[in-house]
């Protein structure tokens, strides 16, 4: 009984538990960058462009060590380990996946924030009802850091003035 197979002329399926090449589902990715922080091998990068207002999440499978930390960290299940293990290619670019997302723009000052539109949307979506003052948070969350700080200061000044008066 011979055990060698005629691979690659026959197809081989990896077992269901297999941690293969990771893949980002661009529909689900919100560009939060949790995977980037988790990745030990720097296979995932976050590249922001505040001029154009885009964020790129770049996955380079050529650097990936298949530890599946990104899979665990992802809040939306966008990045998943697949069962694919065949990565040989003649072009290194084949190893790179890029997801480009729009950064959120501050409606007040018009500059780009350091989070994406989708991340904001997701954050507002999972906001537990009743626990916080939802409207107040919604009002502030859409602003950039500077404007938010300014608004907070303005509000405080306003409030203190009210107290004084």
């Amino acid at each position, binding site marked *: 009984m011979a055990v060698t197979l005629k691979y690659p002329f026959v197809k081989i399926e990896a077992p269901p538990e297999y*941690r293969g090449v990771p893949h980002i589902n661009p529909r689900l990715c919100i560009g939060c960058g949790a995977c980037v922080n988790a990745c*030990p091998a720097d296979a995932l990068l976050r590249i922001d462009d505040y001029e154009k207002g885009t964020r790129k999440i770049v996955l380079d499978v050529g650097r990936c060590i298949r*530890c*599946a930390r990104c899979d665990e960290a992802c809040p939306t299940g966008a990045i998943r380990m697949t069962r694919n293990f065949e990565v040989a290619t003649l072009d290194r670019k084949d190893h790179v996946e890029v997801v480009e997302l729009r950064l959120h723009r501050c409606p007040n000052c018009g500059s780009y924030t350091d989070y994406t539109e989708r991340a904001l949307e997701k954050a507002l979506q999972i906001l537990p009802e009743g626990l916080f003052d939802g409207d107040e948070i919604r009002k502030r969350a859409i602003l950039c850091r500077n404007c938010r700080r300014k608004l907070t200061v303005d509000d405080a000044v306003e409030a203190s003035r009210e107290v004084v008066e």
Partner: protein
Amino acid sequence: MKEWARKITDEKVRERYVNEVIERFRDKIIRVERNADNQWMIEIRKEDLPEVIGYIINHPEWKETQLSTMVGADERPLRGKFSLIYWISINGASGDVFFGIKTYISEDDPKFPSVTPIHPGANWYEREVKDLLGLIPEGHPDPRRLVLPDDWPEGVYPLRKDFHYTDSPKREFTDETKYPYREPPKGTAVFPLGPYHVALDEPGHFRLYVKGEEIVDVDYRLFYQHRGIEKIGENRLTYDQVNFIAERICGICGTAHALAYAQAVEAAGGVEVPERAEYIRTVMAEIERLHSHLLNLGLACHDVGFDKGFMDAFRLREHVMWLAERLTGNRKTYGMVVIGGVRRDFLEYRRSMIEKVIRELREGFQKWADQTLSTKTFVKRCEGVGVLSYKDAKRWSSVGPWARGSGRDLDARRDHPFAAYKYLDFKVPVYKEGDVLARCLVRAEEILESIWIIEQALDEMPGGDILAEWKEIPPYQEAVGFTEAPRGEDVHYVMTGEGNRLYRWRIRASTYNNFPALPDAMRGNSVADAVLIIASMDPCYSCTERVQVVDARSGKVRVLTEKELTELSRKASRGV
């Protein structure tokens, strides 16, 4: 807990050892501190290093004492000084104690008395701190370069904190930077082996000085594959990330490294690991041992041209690899161990898979062993070859099957029980002959023991959590973590730092302690056996050589025509 485990973790036994050292060197000790359950740190002045270390290592009554690791660190940002710690362990099932003999060395006078003349096992360690930190061991018998490449400039010390991990000094390869190999003894020819050789699985260069086919002496040059893992671990990675990089130190015993690292951090940070996770760690470590030993036994067969044994061993191994793939998601890099526990639980179906595979493996392996040991030509080739005497094994602080084949009765699983080994019952096979056959037999018996350990662990595995929560690890805590990798004890030292990062991480793979003993085992043997002896040590070059960032681009690049290249290689071959 088993009887022997209780005995060696007995607080009284440990205190006896520690008290004796304190009693004897009362006036020399500056500070004593207990870092972890089984680890004592004793600070002394650097002048007293050889005396104190010599006393502990050569103590006539303490069993199988040995230099487990030595750490040099740049603590200038903290204390304005460099530090050195010699970690010495007591083994032989007689008390679970690690002594960390620490000393500080100032920058103005970066010299310290070498311990190597008293204990040769310190040879590599001291050369390494010389290369990487610029601390000079005085009186070292062999102060050649060990770790850094030949053309690395003098005076640049990559593990100092003022060397950024992306730095790459300008290097130029000249005749002067050529490695000073020992002059061949009179009347011998040089038989070069490697760095690229069919039977060496990784690069390493040996110079065999031969008379006819007899090896008279051996010189070597290693460290062809540094990847700067320690430096990266200290600079770029967080505690959790290091685990996965640690696992990739080695292509075979990754889990042993990940586990040693996790245990070091757990000891430093006081993280309690759930019992179920301990059992799962144990099973994974044993599965790793199974495939590693099968690989080594197979290669031993291959090196003597017995390809039937080679193929059979690798086929048995394949089932273990498939099992690991089902359990963890990968054949080799399991990614199971994280600080605080493990990542994947053993579900019921996986458990029955393990049981099935190890049952078949036991049967298949016994058949394999019968077949191989009844192959006369195989036994003839292994018997009496590459003898490493007990004295030499002890002298070089050798570990693992390499040392157990020479009669050293030490096994970190039993002597410093970690993970779930303290609850389990197993034997440590020891042979006195010290030849290749003895080491093969040690490995063969360990395979059967591993199967038995896995069976027990599956039976006794409790329920519950597999991962403990931990929030913050206090900074500047020091500890060592140790595992018994298939090749012997692996020791990881960590000094925690701020900002979720390590301050210092020192990896010591088992081969690091075994390799320097190799020339002793090779002398007097035939060239034909050189490769077999090297394989019987089960060397793991990439484990051993992990330290420095290497930039491959050195000097000018010139494209040679095929003719020029041939001409060059002809010249080179005349030069040998």
